[in-house]
């Protein structure tokens, strides 16, 4: 339907879903022949995609795993091991084998989901909140506020991601390993947010800029709607779709980032159980027990993939150009 000549032939005027017609007017009954909004259209498209269902199912599984690990590994203990089982191969007892300390790898992989996903989801929420707010302010206000916020964003954007995270973590995570589990996780989350918010801000800013001058926003302003109302009722719903997509993909990449930092030895540390730590610990035994690296890596990759895939599927569904 992207071809202009067909579009003019096969459709009656007004039947095309447009960006502005979707969320903003979704509440009002429309007298068009096909009262479909962009979101409804996207959902219709999404329902038919196996990729969407696969990734959504996997994500639900991972979230359940993070919330109720005991459900998946009943009786499994991720932290205490028996040295007698050290580096045992997979068996009926321990499906994925045992690590060098004799801990059950299967239980550890299951319990590892929690730390990884918790950090990733919290970081994404923080990033969206901070970046989104900054972006809206910057885009809506414009002028010197925009210039200032944009330069600040540039400062953080100029830092290479891994490098910045390592510096932040080593600085605040100090020499002592006596930091509590929650503090380390908080630090990792904070450093991910600090280094990622500029991306979301730019996304939001350009999104606001492009919708700000749209006719229906100008109309709302002319009708006397206040700034807060315009942002909440008109701007936000229209900018939400790209934010949602980006957020979903970001969960995936943050799971990967957390694992990278743990792998480098500056992120989460034992006794916290996470996929990155397991891969890092297991790599020296990769010749004798490849499973120690393989299983956490497989879970890590699957988790990252499902979030990225879901984001991609939603984006494709939301983009009318790709239909």
């Amino acid at each position, binding site marked *: 339907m992207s071809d202009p000549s067909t579009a003019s032939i096969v459709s009656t005027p007004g039947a095309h879903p447009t960006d502005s017609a979707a969320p903003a007017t979704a509440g009002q009954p429309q007298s068009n022949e096909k009262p479909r909004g962009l979101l409804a259209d996207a959902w219709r498209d999404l329902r038919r995609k196996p990729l969407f269902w696969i990734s959504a199912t996997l994500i639900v599984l991972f979230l359940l795993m993070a919330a109720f690990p005991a459900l998946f590994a009943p009786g499994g203990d991720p932290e205490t091991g028996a040295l007698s089982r050290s580096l045992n191969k997979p068996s009926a007892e321990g499906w994925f084998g045992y690590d060098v300390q004799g801990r059950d790898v299967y239980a550890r992989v299951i319990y590892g989901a929690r730390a990884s996903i918790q950090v990733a989801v919290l970081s994404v929420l923080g990033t969206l909140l901070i970046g989104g707010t900054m972006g809206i302010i910057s885009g809506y206000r414009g002028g010197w506020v925009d210039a200032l916020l944009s330069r600040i964003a540039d*400062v953080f954007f*100029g830092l290479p991601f*891994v490098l910045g995270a390592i*510096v932040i973590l080593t600085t605040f995570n100090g020499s002592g390993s006596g930091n509590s589990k929650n503090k380390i996780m908080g630090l990792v989350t904070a450093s991910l947010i600090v280094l990622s918010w500029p991306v979301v801000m730019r996304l939001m800013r350009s999104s606001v800029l492009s919708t700000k001058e749209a006719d229906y926003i100008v109309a709302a302003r002319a009708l006397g709607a206040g700034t807060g109302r315009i942002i909440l009722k008109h701007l936000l719903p229209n900018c939400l779709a790209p934010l949602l997509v980006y957020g979903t993909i970001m969960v995936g990449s943050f799971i990967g980032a957390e694992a990278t930092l743990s792998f*480098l030895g500056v992120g989460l540390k034992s006794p916290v159980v996470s996929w990155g730590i397991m891969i890092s610990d297991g*790599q020296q035994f990769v010749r004798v027990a490849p499973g120690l690296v393989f299983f956490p*890596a497989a879970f*890590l*990759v699957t988790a*990252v993939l499902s979030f990225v895939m879901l984001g991609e599927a939603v984006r494709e569904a939301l983009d009318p150009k790709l239909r």
Partner: protein
Amino acid sequence: MGRYLLRRLLQLVPVFIGTTFLIYWLVWAVPGDPFAGKCGERRCPDQYIAFMTEKYHLDQNVFVQYFTYMKNLLQGDFGQTFSQREISDIILTSYPNTLKLAVVALAIEAVIGLGAGVLTGLRRNGFLDNLVLVSTLFLIALPVFVVGFVLQWLLGVQWGIIKPTVSSEMRWSELIVPGFVLGSASVAYIARVARTSIAENRRADYVRTAIAKGLPMRRVVGVHLLRNSLIPVVTLLGTDLGALMGGAIVTEGIFSINGIGRQVFRAIITKESATVVGIVVVLVLVYLLMNLLVDLLYAALDPRIRYE
């Protein structure tokens, strides 16, 4: 054009100062005692403390410290490590290695990414298209350390096709696999951007015109379509070169390449604050200048854009 360039350069200054100050503050000022843990397990020798305090004005506030440091730096003085090695030496020996790795990565991105993107953009929804879509998804999703580790293990350890680590001679052939690892995510992005760009432009009116002129398909695609579709790809490649040089920490670590990333990682872990700041300054500068270059390149590629 000249005025635009000047304005952009002036805009770079606060960003450059902001970023480098941030790092300076993090490594020197935040930990409280700037010498904590800097000399290994022992306390630093008094002589060294006195020397460093003098040199970096550590008895004054962080702003004075920073600007004194910058003043020295602008005169080419990066300072010394606590073992009295010139930091500029470290940078000069390791930076070319990183550059070499980044160039290999970029070449791989350009060849594989662009090739896959163009082929799939021209023929959408075929077998190749789906294959590329799935494999780029994997490359985007896989953390670099996983890709690096798996390739090193499979190709280097299991199958013995490559040496697991790169020798100090840094032969080009040794850099192919590390280069691919470093550029793995970017290969995927390039392929996708190229694919979308080609697919969009393929239906453009001017392509239709070129066909109507009776030009051979080779020329329609190779000259008219490609020239337009390349604009976003080239700019992405340019931005990436700046980013690659800062992002090589993991790759260099896995393949034992003596590059800037490995040096900065070692410096961070061993609390070599002066080295960390020195390297970051260089990395940020390169990154910012590359981005500026990309902007200018954009104007050169698309005659419709004129900077005033």
